[in-house]
């Protein structure tokens, strides 16, 4: 018998976890799906130019993306709440599937199924609302996966004119690569909260958010201190003017993207290893 990965057994654990998916997450998803509807109703009842701008297709894509991230953050604690509970987790631990199979199933539901189900539902709701002659103009679904268009819209909205090389660079990136970049971002967020779900017994999401906020504050203090006292960086920023502003922003964006990309991969790998170890060695 293959005790590490058996396709038949993996199918069974996927089905087992799948049967728990909607009962455990439907309320969370329903609340998150309701938010764009509430926004729609609020704008429809109080239409002003400002509110209409706030619900253009790009803004709605931003809102849906943010809510999808919230779903990803909440999902591990809703779907696998009791897997490290000394009493309620015994059933999960004793389920005849390998650690790898349980881990992969958890990964699939938290990282892939949750965002897909949420985004699909949210885009469907958005499309239905956009069919009415109400405040929603255009379809969010038509631009949701067009990262280039989204970035362009953000820069245009913020009045930042980027040079042609930047636009060409973005246009040259294949949609699949952009999807991978986006997937790694999703994986990083999800893996952090999957790990939090395994190490905390109660208030799992809240505690992990608290830790992230503290780490972020510490990180910002360190970075600001470093930047403020680094002469080379100060000299670099002193050279920025209206003529080369776009070039500066482009360089900063590229560098930040690089750092973020590698940081997300490292964080995901560490967190997922931690999740796997916890599933394997959790005591009850």
């Amino acid at each position, binding site marked *: *018998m293959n*005790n590490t990965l*058996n396709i038949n*057994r993996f199918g*069974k654990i996927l*089905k*087992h976890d799948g*049967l728990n998916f909607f*009962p455990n997450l439907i309320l969370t998803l329903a609340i998150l799906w309701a938010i764009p509807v509430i926004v729609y109703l609020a704008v429809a009842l109080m239409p002003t130019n400002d509110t209409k701008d706030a619900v253009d297709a790009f803004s709605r894509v931003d809102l849906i993306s943010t809510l999808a991230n919230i779903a990803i953050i909440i999902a591990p604690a809703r779907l696998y709440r009791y897997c490290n509970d000394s*009493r*309620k987790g*015994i*059933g999960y*631990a*004793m*389920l*005849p*599937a*390998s*650690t790898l*199979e349980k881990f992969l199933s958890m990964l699939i539901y938290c990282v892939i199924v949750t965002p897909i189900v949420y985004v699909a539902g949210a885009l469907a709701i958005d499309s239905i609302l956009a069919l009415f002659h109400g405040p929603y103009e255009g379809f969010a679904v038509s631009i949701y996966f067009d990262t280039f268009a989204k970035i362009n819209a953000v820069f245009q909205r913020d009045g930042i004119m980027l040079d042609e090389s930047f636009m060409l660079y973005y246009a040259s990136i294949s949609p699949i690569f952009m999807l991978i970049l986006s997937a790694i971002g999703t994986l990083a967020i999800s893996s952090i909260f999957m790990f939090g779900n395994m190490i905390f017994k109660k208030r799992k999401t809240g505690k992990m958010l608290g830790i992230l906020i503290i780490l972020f504050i510490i990180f910002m203090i360190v970075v600001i201190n470093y930047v403020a006292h680094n002469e080379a960086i100060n000299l670099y920023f002193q050279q920025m003017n209206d003529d080369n502003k776009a070039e500066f922003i482009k360089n900063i964006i590229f560098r930040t993207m690089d750092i973020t990309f590698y940081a997300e991969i490292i964080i995901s790998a560490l967190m997922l290893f931690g999740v796997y170890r916890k599933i*394997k*060695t959790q*005591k*009850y």
Partner: protein
Amino acid sequence: MIKINNLDFAYNNTQVFKNISLEFEKGNIYGLLGENGVGKTTLLKLICGLQKPQHGSVTVDGLTPSMRQPQFLQNVYFLPEEVITEDTTPEKFIQKIGVFYPRYDFALFNQLMKELEVDLSKKFNELSHGQKKKALLACALSLQTDYLFLDEPTNGLDIPSKALFRKVISQYCNDETTVIISTHQVKDVENLIDPIIILDRDDVLLKASFAEITKKLYFEYGPERLQNAYYTEMLPGGYINVMPNEDGLESNINIEALFNAVMKNKETIKNLMQNE
């Protein structure tokens, strides 16, 4: 076969087991007895792989439980003392987990639910505590695992249910199955368990079959308290005396009296049972 060799286990600084060795053979219903907090549940958890020994080893058919390999897990089922159930019917619950167990039998589940008189249509949270326990017992038995571990299974069961419990467990056990029942309600499992294991803090005081126990100990039911008895207890109509069986007489074990006799004469009875 379950083999425990030189097992040490502690929760933080509290030692639970110190160098204990035990073997559990197939085809038996073991009664695991002991006072509260001696480690009955912990021993079951160690055998199930829910805890890991600090020293020594636990193996089940040559497999290490703490590795939680599917090959091991599909042959064991642990029914904890505390009833924790999902918001679903027992039928849906067993259909969800049953597929993982090679000998799972849904027809047997239905039959057991009928025998145990549990309403099939109700969700777990609509059942009483005792009904939930019986439903989970039906689930556990229908999986037909080689090893079944029951932690205080009769807690919360009414008197007819306790009789039903004994009946279905007796029916379940065959030459290939090993059942370990951890309990402090010894009367509930009388006429069901054999052999008996009595745990003490850090130690195993007794592990013996009924035949071995009655060979060494004599349970005398009589009108008076005997002086040389290890333990005497007043019963309606007289006394029960637990005595050394020096004349090789036959008697019926009273598990409660045995337990109390062992607890009062730990070293004496331990040595008596170890002597050939």
